[in-house]
């Protein structure tokens, strides 16, 4: 066990966990931030996506010991960011969600995309969110919502 000081959604958090514990389980089990979901556990589905130093990161495969002092933003905190807020609003407006399990990961990847590409093409969206799977098949509405958010931001 080891103690780690984490910066999560702008707040300092201290956890005492095994160094190999994936960030996902630190967020969910230790910090009770359950908006980030466990999907596949091998970074193949994107449900566990959070931002680490602004990079959309698959938290299920990153041991907490490798985080260091990089700031973490989860779905619970992304609404404090203007781009994150716009994406969440667009998600509601376009009624994207069906079962919703994958959607926090979808939103985190969408925000990462819009922060680097203000007006993404369909190809940009497919490439950036290609690692976020949705078994409900909401991809068309996801694309519409990203374009809606882009329109609101530019």
């Amino acid at each position, binding site marked *: 066990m080891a103690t780690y000081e984490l910066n999560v959604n702008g707040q300092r958090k201290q956890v005492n966990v095994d160094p*190999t514990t*994936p960030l996902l389980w630190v967020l969910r089990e230790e910090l009770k931030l359950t908006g980030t979901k466990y999907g596949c556990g*091998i*970074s*193949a589905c*994107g449900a566990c*996506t959070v931002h680490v130093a602004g*990079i*959309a*990161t*698959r938290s*299920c*495969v*990153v*041991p907490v010991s*490798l985080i260091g002092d990089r700031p973490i933003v989860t779905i619970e905190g992304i609404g404090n960011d203007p781009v994150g807020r716009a994406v969440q609003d667009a998600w509601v407006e376009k009624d994207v969600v069906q079962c919703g399990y994958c959607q926090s990961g979808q939103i985190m*990847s*969408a925000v*990462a*995309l819009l*922060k*680097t*590409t203000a007006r993404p093409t369909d190809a*940009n969206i497919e*490439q*950036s*969110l*290609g*690692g*976020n799977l949705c078994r409900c098949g909401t991809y068309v509405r996801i694309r519409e919502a990203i374009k809606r958010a882009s329109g609101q931001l530019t």
Partner: protein
Amino acid sequence: MLLRSRRTGSVFDQAAPNANRILRSVTVILVACGAGLLLMSFASPQARHGDRARTRTEGLVAWQQVYSVLTSPRCINCHTATNYPQQGDDRHRHFATVIRGPEGKGVAGLNCASCHQETNADSTGVPGGHNWHLAPLSMRWQDLNDEPLSSVAVCRAITDQSKNHHLDGPGLLKHHEDEALVRWAWQPGRRPDGTMRTLPPLTHEEFVAATRRWVEAGTPCPPGR
């Protein structure tokens, strides 16, 4: 005057035999050197050609060792000609539709750094190293069918400074010796199932030594295509 003349003559007369001996010695030396040069004028082209041929041969042998490492999965999986990296010893396409992206680091939302951290994550089986990224397309060592390029083609590519970020021989040696992602190939960590990833066919020390021999031979490339 007489005295002086005598003295002078006397001195000269005494020095003359020594001067003659010196002159003869110099002549002998000059003749010997001339003969040597004459012999070398016949022998040296062959001898020099022999040295060159031996050095080039040694360089080509060393290159083949270098090539065996470059085309091993730990190296060539990120030197693709396609829009995606590969993984595993069978060099299959990277899962999760990961793509190259404009800088070889994936795309926003799906960067290399989305999973690959600064070091290996052995507990989850994800390899990592500083600045994890794909090699540029100019340094592709495969064709579009994911088949390794020939020894000649790879050699020509990595010695072409318009393609290799302007690295000369010593620069290539330093790259092989120090670059973090090159060194990662010998510390590749564990697979998700906990087993160790396969290493390149040479140790890093052997790889660097082979690169040095190849560079010292003038980075020769095999003939042909």
